[in-house]
């Protein structure tokens, strides 16, 4: 009796996970097949006739290619750098300095972080950047995205800092290191895996962000890929599936490569209460 029930439960479990897996796998399958299909539709099908023509056409669209390989890299890269560096410094300070109410401070930050980059804050953000003369600049986009990602970034980094024994720093100080030497030689290398996690996470977030650059960037030559993808739509507003899929595949590659590189070089680690749930 019990074994029959066990088998049924297992079967049910497998069925549900297979259904869920298929649901998430289908778009990915489409993404890797459609670009090579001369007559791509929204269905997942083996490319026939097989062609690389779509990529050729995409590369002839200099606006879209510049958006992907220059503007998106600049904006996402800048956001990645800003978020990783500032989050590390802030998390270190918040973990090591005795500041009253620092826990409350961190939780408030995380709570309101979603508001900052959300649609609701768009008008004040636009006005702020207008007065700072940062509308239509890469720096403006980078600052807004970094500001939105920092609270969660600090929260993630704080776990890494807290898991580092204080005796590392103390031993460096007693060994004769200045505060800066201690930070450079001991703290930063120990925190590097954490910085990598935050960096990749920030890059992916900035890479996929449409709203912020769509509102803040005015001139076409500064638009990033998520905005530029609309250049593969017809004037009537329908996507040209062959080109959209080819461009999307190119658009997905840097993130995959970055992830594989960091995973190979440093390995992803999550500490404390956010094991595996950080991304």
């Amino acid at each position, binding site marked *: 009796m019990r074994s029959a029930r066990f088998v049924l439960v297992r079967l049910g479990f497998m069925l549900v996970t297979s259904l869920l897996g298929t649901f998430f796998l289908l778009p990915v399958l489409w993404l890797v097949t459609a670009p090579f299909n001369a007559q791509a539709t929204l269905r997942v099908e083996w490319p026939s006739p097989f062609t690389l023509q779509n990529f050729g056409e995409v590369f002839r669209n200099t606006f879209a290619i510049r958006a992907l390989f220059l503007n998106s890299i600049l904006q996402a890269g800048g956001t990645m750098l800003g978020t990783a560096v500032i989050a590390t410094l802030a998390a270190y300070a918040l973990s090591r300095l005795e500041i009253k109410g620092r826990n409350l401070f961190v939780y408030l930050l995380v709570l309101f972080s979603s508001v900052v980059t959300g649609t609701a804050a768009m008008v004040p953000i636009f006005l702020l950047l207008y007065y700072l003369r940062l509308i239509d600049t890469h720096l403006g986009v980078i600052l807004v995205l970094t500001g939105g990602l920092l609270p969660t970034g600090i929260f993630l980094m704080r776990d890494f800092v807290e898991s580092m*024994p204080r*005796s*590392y720093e*103390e*031993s*460096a*100080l*007693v*060994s*004769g*290191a*200045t505060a800066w*030497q201690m930070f450079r*030689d*001991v703290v930063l*290398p*120990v925190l*590097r895996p954490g910085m990598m996690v935050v960096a990749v996470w920030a890059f992916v977030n900035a890479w996929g962000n449409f709203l912020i650059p769509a509102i803040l960037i005015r001139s076409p030559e500064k638009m990033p890929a998520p905005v530029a993808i609309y250049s593969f739509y017809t004037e009537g507003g329908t996507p040209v599936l062959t080109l959209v899929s080819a461009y999307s595949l190119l658009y997905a590659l840097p993130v995959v490569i970055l992830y594989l590189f960091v995973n190979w070089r440093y390995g992803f680690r999550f500490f404390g209460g956010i094991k595996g749930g950080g991304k």
Partner: protein
Amino acid sequence: MKLQTEKKKSHRIYEAHVVLQDLTKHFGAVVAVDHVDLTISEGEFFALLGPSGCGKTTTLRLIAGLEKPTEGKIFLGGKDVTNLAPRERDVAMVFQDYALYPHMTLRDNIGYPLKVRGVPRKQIYAKVEEVARHLKIEDLLNRRPSQVSGGQQQRAAVARALVHEPQVFLFDEPLSNLDAKLRLEARAFLKHLQREVGVTTIYVTHDQAEAMAMADRIAIMFTGRICQVGSPVEVYRHPLSKEVAAFIGNPPMNLIPGHITREEGGHFFIGPGFSISLGGIPGAQEGEVFLGIRPEHIRVLSEPHPQAIPGKLYAVQPLGPELLITVQVGEIPVSVRLFTDDLPQLEEDVWLLPTLERVHLFDPTGKRLE
């Protein structure tokens, strides 16, 4: 071993090498270190001993400069270092967890104190090789801390402390992460090394056996205060308080509450269900007392004796070269150590005969009576 340079030898003019004056540290409302005065001599191996939370590690961290004292002063080699940063104090510290940097090889770990002092790389490596050879870890220098054993990590941490020839070594329970067998080895190793290098050493431990085995002098701390300072033999033979008596020795000193009356023939100790003559032992005066007697200063008899304490046999533990016997005297368990490997034939009723010259008396507040 020529680890000491000429510069270091000039420190020998200071008789008192480490001086703590009225040292006090508060953490909020908690008084971790309470008006501590200590003088430690050049080249001395000095142990700070006490239960966890007694302030011994805080005292060490104050000396290292990792904490700022609330009150008081610290002198190292005759110089007031109270307000100096750790790196200006010329001390080296071995941490309980060794604090070896996981991303560096043992070579870079050991060489780090020289690197931050701007010593050229060639000289660093030469010095690291020399120290590592001395500590027998020269084959492990290219490994990371996670790739060597606990005992080897400990040696690497000691090597890092040794490499820049500090004025003072600070050890914070460096053996507590080792297993029992390695710990005994490491004790001998550290003691030998300290004698050889001759650097003033302050060693924090909660293990009384470790402190007794290694130190020239021991300071025993309770609740932030130093209760007694003395050589291992002094604190063992002549504890100044009941707390110290109960902390030193394994098993600790037996303490039997009772009172002393004066009758014909001298003073008598009246304990739970018995009375023995104290003869003319010093400190005997009428009133409530604790009678202290170490487990090794008691003989076990199988027949009544006028000077013996009657009790019930509770347990016999053969430990190899010795026997540990527990006897219930009234409600109080009394430990007895017999240096024999023959199991004695004992009935349930036994009589304990204390060696009177080795009896200690403490007043109800715990102060030694003499």
